Each structure stands twice: as structure tokens, then as C-alpha cells.
């Protein structure tokens, strides 16, 4: 209980500018029949209150595994966190006891999953599932919990919340289910929300509604938000800063405007170039050649080198560190980093 009190100190207790969450040099492996899959290989990022960090990457880039490690819901085994620290308000979640960790999960850090239908329990009413949060963490009565559930459903703008509180997940549409997921994540007013592809399963018109709701609630509660996605469009709409992941590493991080205007890593540039543009109609799209790497056999040196047009011998032997990049005249570019030996050429060339 003491640990809960310490970590759960008021929102105001955090010194301004201190990140809410810091991930430092995280390594995660999975032991499989075919060998060790290195899913996360030294990821570091930080999120402050009120800030939106987008983690952008393709399947297998390690973006979800990192989030699962933060949330403490990684399947272990086969997964294993081999090194690194995850600091939430300065406390390392990885060395914390199980009870203290449980108090953080849900109450301080909440998660929204991609597929609401499989994340919700099909045989319990949504009212019960929402109320469960309050009963478990605050010990309120069933009746109170149900009232709280209606309140939450109202807040995420589910129509006729009072009548629908007893309905089961299958009776809601996809967009409404995702709203219930958001309501559940918000239930205990967490400081940080991790949204893992929250709108991927939704249609564009519904996606816009859900993203707007999420952004609105985030600013209302001054929450930190980690948005995990592969959609460059969604990222451009909501993120403050972006971390691009490839083969378990962050290959580039930057504030959103600068990343789209001038990428500093060939992979980011390739992703941006492969978006169909108006003036390219009738021409070939700029595709990134080759395939994403197999995590059992990540290429030597820079993992992107077999697909990179700029690759030199150095890229095939020497792992490029994630270093701060500078402008053309050596001026500092705040928050920009790139893990490419030739970031200068990529950024300025």
C-alpha cells in the first residue's frame, strides 16, 4: 500500500518538464523453437503529461512489445526483458513488487487495444466490465459501480447510456465498442494512456470520431498518450513527437512537423515516399525494396541496410547509434535523432 501512495502522489507533484514515463535501453527477447527472436533491441523514449508520442512502425518492429513491457502484460515466458529500465514518475516498474505494479497498471497507466471485440469479455455486460474497475481499485459497491459505468459511457458519448449499460459487447457497433475501451481506460483517470492501434479496425468516418474523442479527453485530463500505429495519416493528425521503429530499434525520433518535412533516416523517407501523391498518378509508387527483416536473423550492422539505397560497406558492419542530428549550419535541432551513418546526406542531401 505504501508503494501505491508514493507512486500515486497527486498529479501536481511532478516537477515541470520531467517526463511521466521514461523507457531506457529496453531489450526484449522471445525464445522460440527456431531460436531467439530479438523483438526490442535498446529502445529509449520519454513522454510528458499532456504530450502525445506516436510510435510508428510496421508489424514486427517491436512497437507493441515495448508497450506491453511498459504495461507489464508481456507474456513471460516466452518473452524475457533482458535489460533496461522503465521509469514511471522516477520509479522503475521492472524492479517493483507485483502488488505495487498492479496498482500502477490501470490506475496510473491504462491501455486501449486494437480489437475491442476480443479485448472485452463477451459473456459479461459492458456495465459490469466498466464497474469492475471501480470495485477492484476503489472497493465501491455494485450499485455505485454501475452508476459510475453509466457516467463513463455518457462521457465517451454513447447514446442512451442508461439503457445500454446492461448490454453485452456484441450488441455494440465497432466504433461504440472502441468507445467502451476508451471509457475503461479512462475509468480511473490515469496519467498515461497507451493506445495500441486504437482505430485500425474502424472505418474512416468512425475513426475520425474516436480520434477526436481521445484527443479531447487527453487535453481535458492532461494525460500523456503513447499512440502506437502504422498509419502515417493518423500520426500527422494527432502526434506531438514521433519515434519510428524498425527491427526493434528506434531509427528516428523527431517532432511531428520536422519529421514529415525533412526525414533524417532513409527508412522514414521511404515510408513517406511510398504514400500515393496526386502528382504521381500513372507513375510507379516509390516502393521500399525488399521485405521487413526476420527477427531471428536481423541483418548485421544497420538492420535496414539490405533495403536501403544509400547503404555502404560501413552500414553492413557497424551498427549506427541513435545520435542527435544538427541543421545545415551545425545548429541544434531540438528533439531530433537519427540512427543512420549518413543522416547528414539524408537530411540535407
Amino acid at each position, binding site marked *: 500500500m505504501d508503494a501505491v501512495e508514493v507512486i500515486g502522489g497527486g498529479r501536481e507533484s511532478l516537477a515541470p518538464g520531467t517526463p511521466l514515463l521514461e523507457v531506457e535501453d529496453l531489450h526484449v527477447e522471445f525464445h522460440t523453437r527456431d531460436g531467439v527472436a530479438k523483438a526490442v533491441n535498446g529502445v529509449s523514449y520519454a513522454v510528458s503529461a499532456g504530450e502525445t508520442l506516436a510510435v510508428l512502425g*510496421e*508489424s514486427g518492429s517491436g512497437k507493441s512489445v515495448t508497450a506491453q513491457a511498459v504495461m507489464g502484460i508481456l507474456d513471460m515466458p516466452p518473452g524475457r526483458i533482458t535489460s533496461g529500465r522503465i521509469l514511471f514518475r522516477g520509479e522503475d516498474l521492472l524492479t517493483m513488487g507485483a502488488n505495487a505494479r498492479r496498482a500502477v497498471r490501470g490506475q496510473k497507466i491504462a491501455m486501449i487495444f486494437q480489437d475491442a471485440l476480443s479485448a472485452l469479455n463477451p459473456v459479461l455486460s459492458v456495465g459490469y466490465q466498466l464497474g469492475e474497475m471501480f470495485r477492484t481499485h476503489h472497493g465501491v459497491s455494485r450499485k455505485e459501480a454501475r452508476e459510475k459505468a453509466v457516467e463513463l459511457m455518457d462521457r465517451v458519448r454513447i447514446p442512451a447510456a442508461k439503457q445500454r449499460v446492461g448490454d453485452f459487447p456484441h450488441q455494440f*457497433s*465497432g*466504433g*461504440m465498442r472502441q468507445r467502451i475501451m476508451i471509457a475503461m481506460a479512462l475509468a480511473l483517470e490515469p496519467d498515461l494512456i497507451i493506445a495500441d492501434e486504437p482505430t485500425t479496425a474502424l*472505418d*474512416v*468516418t*468512425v*475513426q*475520425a*470520431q474516436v*480520434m*477526436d474523442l481521445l484527443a479531447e479527453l487527453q487535453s481535458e485530463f492532461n494525460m500523456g498518450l503513447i499512440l502506437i500505429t*502504422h*498509419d*502515417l*495519416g*493518423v*500520426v*500527422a*493528425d494527432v*502526434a506531438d513527437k514521433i519515434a519510428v521503429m524498425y527491427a526493434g530499434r528506434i531509427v528516428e525520433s523527431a517532432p*511531428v*512537423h520536422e519529421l*514529415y*518535412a525533412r526525414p533524417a533516416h532513409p527508412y522514414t523517407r*521511404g*515510408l*513517406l515516399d*511510398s*504514400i*500515393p501523391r*496526386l502528382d*504521381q*498518378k500513372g507513375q*510507379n*509508387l*516509390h*516502393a*521500399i*525494396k525488399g*521485405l*521487413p527483416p526476420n527477427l531471428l536473423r536481423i541483418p548485421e550492422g544497420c538492420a535496414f541496410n539490405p*533495403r536501403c539505397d544509400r547503404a555502404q560497406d560501413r552500414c553492413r558492419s557497424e551498427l549506427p547509434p541513435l545520435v542527435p542530428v544538427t541543421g545545415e549550419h551545425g545548429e541544434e535541432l531540438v528533439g531530433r535523432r537519427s540512427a543512420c551513418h549518413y543522416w547528414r546526406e539524408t537530411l540535407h542531401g
Partner: protein
Amino acid sequence: MTADGASAPGAAVPEETVPEETAFVQEVPRGEPILEVRDLVKHFPLTQGILFKKQVGAVKAVDGVSFDLMQGETLGIVGESGCGKSTLAKVLMNLEPATGGSVRYKGEEISRLSGSGLKAVRRNIQMVFQDPYTSLNPRMTVGDIIGEPYEIHPEVAPKGDRRKAVQDLLDVVGLNPEYINRYPHQFSGGQRQRIGIARGLALKPEVIICDEPVSALDVSVQAQVINLLEQLQGEFNLSYMFIAHDLSIVRHISDRVGVMYLGRLVEIGSDAEIYDHATHPYTQALLSAVPVPDPTARESRDRIVLTGDVPSPANPPSGCRFRTRCWKAQQRCEDEVPLLVSPSWLGGAARHDSACHFAAEREVGQGAAERGNGQGAAGPEDGQSPD
């Protein structure tokens, strides 16, 4: 009659008769419809009772869809999930029998064909499926998967030539021909989709229906598959029907685009007409909701956020099906089904088929609701009389 005289000197040229004899399939010149779809309807009955099934209603998945697919063109079909675009594909392939309406392939009615006639038509219309993980049989080798169409249509490739034909196809779609004995699980998603495309090409079809062919693929691989499809279209003079929900990809690949909502086409036109001069409110909302991969556009975006969800196709709204979510809706939208016709009161690129009583281009920056009030002057009857 006058043409007779004109063609008489031409008949002396010997080449003119040669292709007439060798062509097995009748040639359709570019720009002519290869597939004509008229009032196509597909209802899935909803039944009650076990022994004595009683029909209590129907899911109107496709409800009166008409369009032409021209020779050599790509027609994009966009719409949200449940709008009937995949059902439309299945009915066109005759995988699901149509409830009503007609589909004509080169003038021949295919929805009533059966047996050998159907078999011959199906050879010319092939399909590429969305999910390359489930659409390939995991127990068959790549050679067997791509060669299977030849078992059904042996006339395309004689038995001895099949292995060679499959290897050629692998080469065409950019896979190593030596992979012929591998199994699907040995390939990545993008490679599997190439296998699916090779299978679609095996019978040298004229029309390929692509149902969300890249949505299951990683972003960096999608562009590769799109490029391949475009390259093949030029090489084999294919007509594509390209069904997808990613509007930017559809715009890139399509010559014309049709927008579906709740089992009906609400708007159809060239890509520029649809993307730059949309006149149907649903198309406008759909386009405005697509996240643009450009953070500088974040503030300047004029987004229409629709309220609510798509109604159930088992019980669609009367009149215009979009009216329950439309900001322009009037009494007339409830009473009268809008037809998919060119609105007479519009001109220029805005004048293309749009199923809205109050079709009008969107003026960026102006409140959308305001324009709905001007309908009295913009109605079709009023618009016609001064002319």
C-alpha cells in the same frame, strides 16, 4: 449502309480477315464496356424457425447497383465495411447468385449462365483476395496453387507445359521461379499476395476483381504490390475492379471511382470528379475524414465528422439511405429515393452521376449546414425550368 461503301476498299487488305478467324474471344475495343452491371441486387434472407423456415426479412447487401467496367480501365470501389462492396465482387464472379438484376460480360448475361457457359466466363473474370494468409491452401505447394486453375481449364495450358507456365507466372509477378516447390508459410505477406496475383493471372483473364488486395500488407510492401498490379495491367491489357477502403491508393490506381453506401452506389465518376468535385454529402464526409499524412494540414482541415454509425442493411432508412447521418437531409430525402444521375443543375466537373437530391460541391470554409438551406433554388425541377 454508308459504312458498307467505306469498308469495301478496306476489305481488300488481307490482314483484316486474319484476326477474325484466330480470335477465340471476341475483341472489345478499348473504351467499350466489358462488364455491364444493371440494377444488381443481392439479398441474404433472414429466417426464423428450424424445420419450417420462415423468411422474416433480408439483409440488403447489394440493392440496385448499376455501372459499366470499360475495357482496360481500373474502376475503384470505395466504401466502409458493410456497404456491400465485397458482396458485389462475389456476385459479379457468380460465387453468390444474384437476387435480381443483370451482369453482362461482353454483352452476354452471366447471372443466368450455368455449366460450361459459366465456366467459360469465369475463366475471363478472376479474383485476387484480401488476405494472403487464408486464401492460399497451406498444404499445397506454390506450384500446385498457381497451377490449380489449369486443372479446371485444361485448354489453357496442356499438361506437359504447366510447370513451365507456372514458373513463367512466378517470374512475371517478381518471385524466383525456383520457389515452385515451396509452401505458402515460407513466404512473407507481400510475397503471398504475389502468389495470389499469379494465380489470378494463370488463365489469362480479361477482368481481375481485386478485393482489398493490399490492406493486409505492411505499408512499405503495399507500394510494391500496387506497382506490380499497374505493370501487369499494361502488359496484359487487364480491366481491374479495385475494391478498397484506402482512398489514397484507390485514387492512385483508378481511372474511375464509385462510392458505395449501404448497398448502393451513391456517386461515380472519374478520379478527379470524385476526389476534387464530389457532390454527394457522403463522399464529401468520407474524403474529409481520411487522415492526411501531412501535419501542416492539421489546422487548416475542414473536416465533416459524421454522427452515429451506418444503419443496419437489414432495415435501411427509407428514401435516401444516407439521410440519417446527413446534414442536408430534408423531408424529400425521406420520401423519395434519389437516383444515380448527373444533376442537371450542376456544370463542369461537378456534373457527374451522384445520387443526391441536393447534390452540390463542397465549399471549403463555409458551414456545410448552411448550404443545405439553399436547396429550394438548387432543386432539380427549379434548376431545369429556367433553362
